[in-house]
């Protein structure tokens, strides 16, 4: 029965264009050794708290990702920015 409801749910969501889940980070707070992100989720009214290491970055848009990195940096130290960009290392060719 559940699988039928899930199929109907996914069909209706696709039909109405509601298939993209996006996390919107609101604030960052540091409690001892943990950094928590207060965020809301598409189609959900409540705000929930997620540890920094467990945040699904793929569900955050680029602008919010940059803002989140700046806020996390500020919660750790002054003049610090956290970036989530992929970095390509050009390794030295050995002679």
């Amino acid at each position, binding site marked *: 029965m559940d699988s039928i409801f899930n199929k109907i749910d996914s069909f209706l969501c696709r039909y109405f264009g509601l298939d993209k889940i996006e996390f919107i*980070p*609101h*604030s*960052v*707070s*540091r*409690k*001892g*050794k*943990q*950094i928590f*992100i207060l965020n809301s989720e598409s189609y959900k009214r409540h705000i929930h708290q997620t540890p*920094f*290491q467990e*945040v699904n*970055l793929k569900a955050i848009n680029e*602008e*919010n990702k*940059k*803002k*989140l*990195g*700046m*806020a*996390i*940096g*500020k*919660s*750790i*130290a*002054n*003049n*610090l*920015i*956290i*970036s*989530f*960009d992929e*970095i*390509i*290392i*050009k*390794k*030295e060719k050995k002679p």
Partner: protein
Amino acid sequence: MKTVNNFSISIHTVLRELIDAKSKRDNIKFTSYQLASALAMPRSIITKLLHADISKRVSNPKIETLIKIIDFFREDGFNVNIDDLLNLKSKSVDVQSQLITSNDKIFSVVLYSFANMKNKIGTIEVAVSNTTKNLIALQASEDIEPFFKRGSIFIIDSEIKPTNETLIAIQLDNMEKIHIRKYVKIKNKIFLKSLANEDDIILPSATTCKILGVIIQINART
């Protein structure tokens, strides 16, 4: 190099500020001896909390002592609580109010290993503020507790002088390994705090601690 307790620094600083503020407000010099007699406790307890020499301060005062101090200053009209005394307040930063600047520039930076700066890994291209000068990059060869996983890249500006609450890269005791510490300045005294344990504090000295620069960006591996 000496390790001290974070609470003793916080209690010392806040208590000293409260005594100074009371003297200034009442226009009469208020001393630690007067505080001790007002609290009906031995002078030595207040003296040990306020001692100028950090190694002679008491690092684990009784909760009862701290409550008595807070109660005294609150009844005297000061807005202070136990969290202020122990520096326990959590800091919250709003994400949506952060301003994204467009003055970032792509720099080609040499990447070294945290374990050994003689060990050049390669070069990377990073977008950082165009006001930066002399950049180096360090790749974490192990997890940097409590926030960063192995492989995260730390961008360091070696020409910026550390200011209060900035993150710095240091080498200790002429060893090659690089450590990350928070630079904290309280009343002209410098403390280097560990990220993992705020109670683990180093008092730097020129012979044992070499500051490599200020960390301006961390490319966190998730």
